[in-house]
């Protein structure tokens, strides 16, 4: 089997598995996996920039929140589908502007600038508390969570919508790494100066990566608000910028499946350890330290290094 075929079988297989899981999972886990798929879509967006392009952003919550609020604040006026689209476009535009400015810096400065932009976004949400209800957030009424004739507040529909989003993001990511554009992103990650001196417009490609990454993150935010019926400022806070970094690091930066694996792992790690002890964050923390010590490339990164060299 060619490497491409192996990769298609593997990633297709994962999607089929996720599809099948909904029929066997108990209600609780059914809900968790739906949530994980939306957050993994967010992580896939993050991975485009961090894992493939080598740019570490500490402000991705602003894109997630742009999608969530872009959808949530307009859904009452525009209706569900246009509001969803509005959220995604809002995230894309924000990414275009932030990318153009933040990419004037590199390395640590880039981390700080993205962090500052996200902080400004968070404070903006608090400042316009009349509309956003600040920290408290707002509930999106069930009547507005109907896409066509599909009620997204129903768990089965919700699972399916989450899977659809995840499948779309996964395919975008998989396609990306096989295009010459995606390969240049990897080249920039590996040796930016060499890539520039091969004649590639490095700035333009990094900017495009920020926009793709921000757009996927915004799509995840918009879906999250719609599927779980809530938008709140905490989703724009710094911890929601750190989460996708952790998920991607754990799952394997620069692997297509890493974001899903990392998100799933982290959700269940916290879930299981909180069942055992109230000091669950301690257990989660120790597990994370062990992983970073012994699986530095993340779970799928180790799989690639040890077993499946062809893993994209």
């Amino acid at each position: 089997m060619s490497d491409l075929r192996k990769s298609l079988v593997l990633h297709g297989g994962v999607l089929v598995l996720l599809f099948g899981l909904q029929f066997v999972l108990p209600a609780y886990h059914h809900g968790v996996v739906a949530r994980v798929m939306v957050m993994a879509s967010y992580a896939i967006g993050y991975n485009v920039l961090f894992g493939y392009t080598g740019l570490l952003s500490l402000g991705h919550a602003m894109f997630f929140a742009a999608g969530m609020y872009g959808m949530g604040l307009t859904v009452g006026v525009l209706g569900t589908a246009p509001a969803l689209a509005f959220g995604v476009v809002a995230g894309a535009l924000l990414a275009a502007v932030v990318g153009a400015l933040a990419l004037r810096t590199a390395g640590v400065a880039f981390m700080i600038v993205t962090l500052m932009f996200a902080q400004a976004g968070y404070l903006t949400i608090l400042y316009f508390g009349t509309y956003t209800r600040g920290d408290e957030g707002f509930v999106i009424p069930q009547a507005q969570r109907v896409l066509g004739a599909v009620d997204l507040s129903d768990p089965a529909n919700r699972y399916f919508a989450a899977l659809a989003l995840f499948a779309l993001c996964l395919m975008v990511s998989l396609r990306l790494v096989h295009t010459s554009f995606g390969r240049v992103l990897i080249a920039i990650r590996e040796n930016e100066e060499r890539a520039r001196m091969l004649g590639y417009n490095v700035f333009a490609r990094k900017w495009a990566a920020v926009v793709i990454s921000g757009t996927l993150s915004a799509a995840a935010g918009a879906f999250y608000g719609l599927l779980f019926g809530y938008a709140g400022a905490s989703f724009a806070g710094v911890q929601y910028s750190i989460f996708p970094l952790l998920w991607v690091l754990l799952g394997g930066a620069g692997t297509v499946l890493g974001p899903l694996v990392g998100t799933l792992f982290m959700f269940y790690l916290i879930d299981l350890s909180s069942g055992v002890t109230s000091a669950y964050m301690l257990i989660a923390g120790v597990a994370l330290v062990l992983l970073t010590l012994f699986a530095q490339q993340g779970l799928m990164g180790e799989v690639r290094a040890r077993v499946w060299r062809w893993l994209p």
Partner: protein
Amino acid sequence: MAAVSLLETRGLSKHFAGLRAVEGVDFTLPEGEVRALIGPNGAGKTTFVGMLCGRIAPSSGTVAFEGRDISHLPAHRRIGLGMAYTFQITSIFARLPVLENVALAARRRLKGAAVTRASLAALERVGLADRADQIAGDLSYGHQRLLEIAMGLVQAPRLLILDEPTQGLADSEIADFKALVRGLVVETTVLLIEHNMNVVMETADRITVLNFGEVLAEGTPAEIRANGAVQAAYLGTG
């Protein structure tokens, strides 16, 4: 023979906080030539070629390529016009396979199956075809330099700039390199920075000598060999 000038600089200078690394260089490179650029350590050779391909912004002066002023073009646009550059300090994609390194250089002008074909052909020319699937960082230092030359060749450049390409090569590899450069004459112009005088004398059509950032002499290998000032500044000490 009315040679067409491929590259021309006028008054090209670079000052680093008072240090005159390159000073007022007027330089003309006709098409189809192999030109060697020599000079003692710190003479400004790397800085000079860095200004040609846009890596380094000049303090003053102009660069024209094929008669067109490119002084204000960013590096990637200049490469796009047909310059290829290899670094003095080897610069490859160390964690990617050898073939992908070359393919990345090829994909800017080629698509699809032609990329792999051209990449393998370029690797063949530098003698690395059998290592296409290895990780580039696992190659020996000399082979990494040859890989970088392959990355230059695959771009089918109008001007190939090589900064000390033979550094770290074994004697047999240097012999192959000399043959390779001579074979390039029909397809490209070569600007070669080189410390190995044997390589310079055998491959170059003409030689430009830089000293303290200024052009000290220019001429055929025989003329340069006979030039007293050059001997004093450079050859005599080597």
